[in-house]
Each structure stands twice: as C-alpha cells, then as structure tokens.
C-alpha cells in the first residue's frame, strides 16, 4: 500500500495546477492482480457537487478515459495524450505477483512508476484548458461507481505523411517549418538516448545481481572457513550486501528519473510530430478544396457546394494551426520544466546514494584486521 506520505506533490511540475481543479492520486493499493488508484479531486468548479472528493479507479478506467479523448474529433488539434500502460508502467498479473514475492524494493520501484504514470496522465488533463472541461473526465473523477468499461484494444496507425505531402504547398509559416525540422531531429535523438539509457541501466542491474551472488558466496565462506578469515568474510559479505543495495537503488532511480523521462518525451515528441502531420493533412485538404473551387467556378457548376467545402477546410486548417501552435509552445515549456525537475532529482538521488557510508574507513578496517 502506498499512501499520500511519499508521493511527491505535483508529480509533473510542468502542469500548472490551479485552485479551480486539482487532481492527484492520493493512495494506491496493490491487490493480487490489480492496482486500485484513489483519485482525489479538489475543485471550485460548479460542475462538481462537492469541493473535494475521491473515487477509486482501476487501470481499465484510465484507458477508457484516454480513448474517449482520442476518438473525439474536437480534440484533433491537441497533442494526443500518451497511452497508459504500454510496457514498463504496468505489468501482467503473473509479473506483478512474482515481483511482490521476490524483491520488495524492486517491486516498490515499479509500483512507483505505475502510480506516477497514471497521475501524470490525470494532471495533464486537468491542466489542459479544453480537456479539463470534458464531461467524461468529470464522470471519471466524480462518479463513485464502476464505470464498467471493457478494456479496448486499439491500434493507431499513423502514416508518415511528410513524405507524401506535396512540397509545393507553400508553408510559409516559419514557426511550423522550424518545428518540423526541430521535432524530426529531436525525436530521433531522444529515441537514441532512451535506448542507450535503458541499456546502461540494465548493465547496472546486472552488476547489482552479481554483487548479490558475491555477498552470498562470501557469507558461505565465512561460515565454513576454519581460519581467522571466518569473521572477516562475514563482515565483507555484509559490506557487499550494502553495496548491492546501493547499486540496485541507483539503477532504480536512474530508471525512474532518466529512462522514464526520455521515454515519455520520446512519445510526446512523436505525438507532436503527429499533430504536425494532421495539420499538413488539413493543409492539403484546404489546397485541394481551393483547386476544386477554382474548377467549379470555371465550369460554373456546383459552385456553392465547392465554396462551402472550401470554407470548411479553411476553417479546419486555421483552427488546427492555431491550437497546434499553442500546443507546441506548451510542449517546449513542459519539456524544459520536466527535464529540469528530473535532472535535479536524479543528481540529488545519485548524491544521496554515493554518500551512503558503507565503509566508515577507520572503524571498519580495524574490524577487518582481526588477528
């Protein structure tokens, strides 16, 4: 059970939470095969019956909420929220049980990640000027019965539209040009960094496992040996066990603060790219509508229809451009804040672990030098 005590306030500081709507996960209870999140809301909005209330939600219900946003046409102009539970955040029932039975610390680390992910998702929604007003979201927060949603299995396929976009479409807007170039490169780099950080952390965990085995062997030697080395081996075994704990925690923290950060922004940058794709598509539609209108006017046939269509496309394109611009600016702000927070915390944790006195040199060497 994880309670309010250790969960950091404002998990993702890039999302400004204001008094009108504050959402957090105040409690998380891991049962045999599922996790129950307590979603706690504080709000002065008139939409809610009370100013403060909590409900219990499971993972499937988060997915339901997420999917409802994705399917909503109205929200096409926003960077799509990241899908929850793809890979590292959630686990299968078997993995969960196994984790619990084995190393509690590792389990705790993974559990932390899961809860953090879900909370980030909610805070994103709560901070978003439009999404926070979504009815489904309010239902999710307030309705204290099961939402009885069935798990959905959606596959989102997105084409690499840039290659197909006719470059003649004069995209004179420098902002979007820059964003396009920037995002392409940034996304690739973040992808690489994410993969490399994963590998680095994996090696770290492997080393910790070896140290674990070494500590055990030393312990056995300590109980078996007939010489002065008995006590010595036992003491050294203790020290190795301490080292192992440190290494394991370093790896876990690097995972949480660095690897997860990079993964998150890998997906965010992909989502931003997708937004640009959608804008480009809208642009193409608009240009095609223009051409169709010209044709219609020339033939003086179905002009009204063509005009309506063109106006619709224009409107859609302008709307998407406007929201996209804001989204991309916000993306930068959020990104910078998130990196700052996580890098600072990473450094602080690394320092904390490095400073653990696993060998107080003078006192320990006298113990070790037993004659």
């Amino acid at each position, binding site marked *: 059970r994880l309670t309010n005590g250790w969960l950091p306030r404002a998990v993702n500081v890039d999302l400004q939470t204001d008094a009108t709507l504050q959402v957090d996960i105040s409690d998380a209870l891991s049962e045999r095969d599922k996790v129950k999140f307590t979603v706690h809301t504080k709000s002065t909005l008139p939409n809610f019956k009370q100013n403060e209330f909590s409900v219990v939600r499971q993972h499937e219900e988060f997915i339901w909420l997420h999917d409802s946003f994705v399917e909503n046409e109205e929200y096409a102009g926003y960077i799509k929220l990241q899908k929850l539970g793809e890979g590292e955040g959630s686990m299968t029932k078997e993995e969960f049980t196994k984790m619990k039975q084995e190393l509690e610390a590792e389990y705790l680390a993974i559990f932390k990640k899961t809860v953090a992910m879900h909370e980030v998702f909610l805070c994103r929604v709560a901070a978003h000027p439009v999404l926070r007003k979504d009815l489904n979201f309010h239902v999710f927060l307030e309705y204290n019965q099961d939402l009885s949603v069935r798990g959905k299995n959606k596959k989102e396929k997105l084409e690499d539209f840039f290659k197909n976009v006719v470059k003649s479409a004069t995209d004179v807007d420098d902002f979007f040009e820059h964003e396009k170039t*920037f995002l392409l*490169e*940034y996304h690739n*780099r*973040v992808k*690489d*960094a994410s*993969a*490399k*950080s994963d*590998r*680095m952390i*994996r*090696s*770290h965990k*492997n*080393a910790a496992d*070896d*140290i674990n*085995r*070494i500590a055990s*062997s*030393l312990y*056995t*030697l300590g109980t*078996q*040996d*007939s*010489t*002065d*080395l008995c006590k*010595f081996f036992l003491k*050294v075994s203790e*020290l190795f066990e301490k*080292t192992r704990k440190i290494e394991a925690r370093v790896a876990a923290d690097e995972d949480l603060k660095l690897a997860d950060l990079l993964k998150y922004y890998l997906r965010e940058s992909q989502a931003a790219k997708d937004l640009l794709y959608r804008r480009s598509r809208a642009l193409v539609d608009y240009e095609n509508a223009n051409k169709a209108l010209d044709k219609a006017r020339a033939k003086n046939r179905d002009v009204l229809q063509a005009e309506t269509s063109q106006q619709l496309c224009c409107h859609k394109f302008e709307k998407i451009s406007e929201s996209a611009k804001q989204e991309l600016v916000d993306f*930068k702000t959020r*990104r*910078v804040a998130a*990196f*700052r927070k996580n*890098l*600072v915390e*990473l*450094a*602080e944790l*690394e*320092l904390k672990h*490095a*400073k*653990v006195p*696993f*060998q107080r*040199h003078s006192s*320990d*060497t006298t113990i*070790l*030098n037993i004659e």
Partner: protein
Amino acid sequence: QSASEPASLPAEDISTNSNGPKQDSLFDDDPEDLFAEATEEVSLDSPERDVLLSDGPSPAITPITPPTSVLTPRIGLHDDMFTHSSFDEVKIEEEEGGDSFDIHISVSDPEKVGDGMNAYMAYKVTTKTSISLFKSHEFSVKRRFSDFLGLHSKLASKYLHIGYIVPPCAGKKHWMTKVKVGKEDQSSNEFVEKRRSALERYLMRTVKLPVLLKDPDVLQFLESSELPRAVSTQALSSAGLLRMVNKAAEAVNKMTIKMNESDAWFEEKQQHFENLDVQLRKLHASMESLVLHRKELSVNTAQFAKSAAMLGNSEDHTALSRALSQLAEVEEKIDQLHQDQANADFYLFSELLGDYVRLITAVKGVFDHRMKTWQKWQDTQMLLQKKREAEAKLQFNNKPDKLQQAKDEIKELEGKVEQGEREFEQISKTIRKEVSRFEKERVKDFKTIIIKYLESLVQTQQQLIKYWDAFLPEAKAIS
C-alpha cells in the same frame, strides 16, 4: 635428456644443457647455511616421479604476433595496488634464526622480440632484495613466457612429490582460452597486462616458499642473463595429466588402512580444501561476471554520454541544452570510473580468487602424492612379504643357489621398505608444515587484498560525489 628443439625457435644462443637442477657449489660452500631445514635428496631418475603442471601443454614456443611497437601495459588507476598489494614485502621468517629478509620481484616492460612466426614477448624481471643468497641487491634479466613455464616445470618435478605446494603458473592453454572467450587478442594491451600481472604474482608466490627461494633454478632464473631454453622433457600433455590423476584416484581406492590419529588431520584438511575449492570457484565465477558487467556498464555509459550530448545539441532551449551537455560530460567521467572499478574488480579480487583456485589444485595434488607415497610403501612391503614366503619355500625345498638370490632380494627390499616408510613420514611432515604456511599466507593475502579492494569501492563512491555535486547546480540553472 634434451628433446629436439622446435623448428620455430629464434636464432638465439640455445644451450642444450640438461635442465635438471644445477649443483650450485657456491651455495653448498656457504658456511652460514641459513636455511637449516634439510633438503630432501631428490632422485631425478625415479620413474614414479610425476610432474604436476597447473594446466596447459608443453613450454614449446607457440608463435605469436603482437604489434611491433613496444607495448606499454595499460596502467589502471591502481596499478601499484593490483600486483604489489600483498607482496609489498616478503618476510621470510627463519625457523631457527629469527632473522627476516625481504625480496620484491617485478615483471615489467613487455616487449615483442623478433618477427613473424618466431616472435615472442619478453619481460623484464627485476629483483630487489637484501637476502644474501643473491649476488647483488638489485638486478634485472629478460625472460620470455616459456621461461616461466620452464621454471615451474622444474620446480614441480622436484618438489611437488615430496609435499611442497609449488605455486602453479597459468599455462598456454589458460591464456589461449582467455583469447578465445574474452574476445581479446594477444596483442591487446589488456591481455598483455593481465599476463604480466599473473607472471609477477607467480614469481612472488614462488619465492615465498623458503625451499624454493634457495633453489638453484630459481636463483638462476632471477639472476642469469642467459637462460637455457626450456625444453619439454617434463612437459605434461593433458593426456598425461589425466593419467596421473587417474593413478592417484586408483591409489586412493586401494587404500584400506584404518585411519589413525595422525591421518584424521589429513582427512579433515582434505575435506576442508575440497569445500574451499567449491566455494572459491563459485565466488570466482560471480566475480568474473561482475567484471564483465561492470565493463559493459562502462561501455553503455559512454554510449549514453554521446547520445545525451547529441540530444543536448538538438535541444533548442539554451539552458536545457547546456545542462544536457553537462550531463553528457558527467556520464563520460563516470564511464571511466566504471572502467577503473572493473579493473580493480579484476586485478585485485578476481585474480586473487583465480590464483587460489589454482593453488588449491596444487594442494590437492600434494595430498594425492602422499597417498601414492603410502601406496608405494605398502606395495613394497607386500612384495617383501611375498619374497619372504618364497624364501621360506625355497629353504624348505633346499635350493641353495636360488636361496642366496632370494636372501639378497629380501635384503634389498627391506631397505626399500625402510626408505618407503621414511619417505611417507617425510612427506607427511612436510605437508603439515606446508599447509600451515599456506593457510597463514592465505589469510594474509585475502585480508590485504580485499581491504584494498574495498578501498577502491570507497574511492569510486567519492568520485561519484564529486561529479554529481558539480552537475547539480547546472541542472538547477535550467530556467
């Protein structure tokens, strides 16, 4: 006694002297005779004398092709620590004198000699000592790998079968395996350094045995500017080694003697070394795994550092971009830290364990030799018994000529039985002393080296603190 030289030997002065122990008259005339313990007279021609080499084939030269440039061994952070750690001084405690002497041997300057197929690595062996056995206080010679193996071969053939725990020297097979498995090539700095370090430890362990220190072969190895090429007369192929092991096992099976008091000590010790062997091998394997993973961690950290730098480059927020570059720098420094720690893991801890796994094999061999000595004595005794019975029969049947022959044979056998008993008692006595010495050394070795290793861990931690301390303000500066 000398075998035919392999064709690929370089054209150097090859003397085809026998490689038996030299009768060093200089030593015999020494009035002081500092080492009072009697040297067992070794009969070189004894056919039962077996040779235990640690592993590997003959000391014949295997052609190697390291690069032509003089290789400087890779010097890790704790170069001095690794090999000189527990060997800072060898104090030979004189049993009856109380004087102590010191000796320090270093193996350095690996250098490729010759070209192509005939090329080999030569090492400089420097001895610094105040022991009067030696002609001077500081001197150097050049030796090649086969010289080391040759020395070990000679010492093993002289001393193992009488109960001395002769330190093994990792043979060619060991190094070949390393090359195959470890993806290292013989020319890599790391491989050269590993071998250099191993040879140095081998020599230091060897001179720690008083009986070996004064051995003429050892003295010659350390002092002589020219060394006769090691030939493979006593080389043991792996087949030969297997034969020897099987024979020892047979001897043990035939042993039906009831264990008396003194034997209980041997039984107990044998069991102790069996257990120790199992545990040390396990520990060694785990340690080797750690070395591997730590090296992987170093490589992966370096790769991540580069990746983070690239990310920083493409980041268009200036402060964040700078912070990411700083992160990349920190990670780069940390990857070097991991590399250094991996070296400490290896040279301090892992090699210590590897050495002791090999040493314990030698210990077990010595116990086996005792068994065989006992067996030989028993066999001779049984033979004597048979001869006596035969003599009685001859006497009964009144065959005077054969009788005399029988009596002569019996006389000879009685002598052999006495000798067999003496040899058995001697080897038992030697082993007791040797095991006691060995255990003392083991305790000292492990304590000294492991403490040094733990210090390396502390050092690494302290470096980490420095690096992250420097980075933290950079991260906070992002706005």
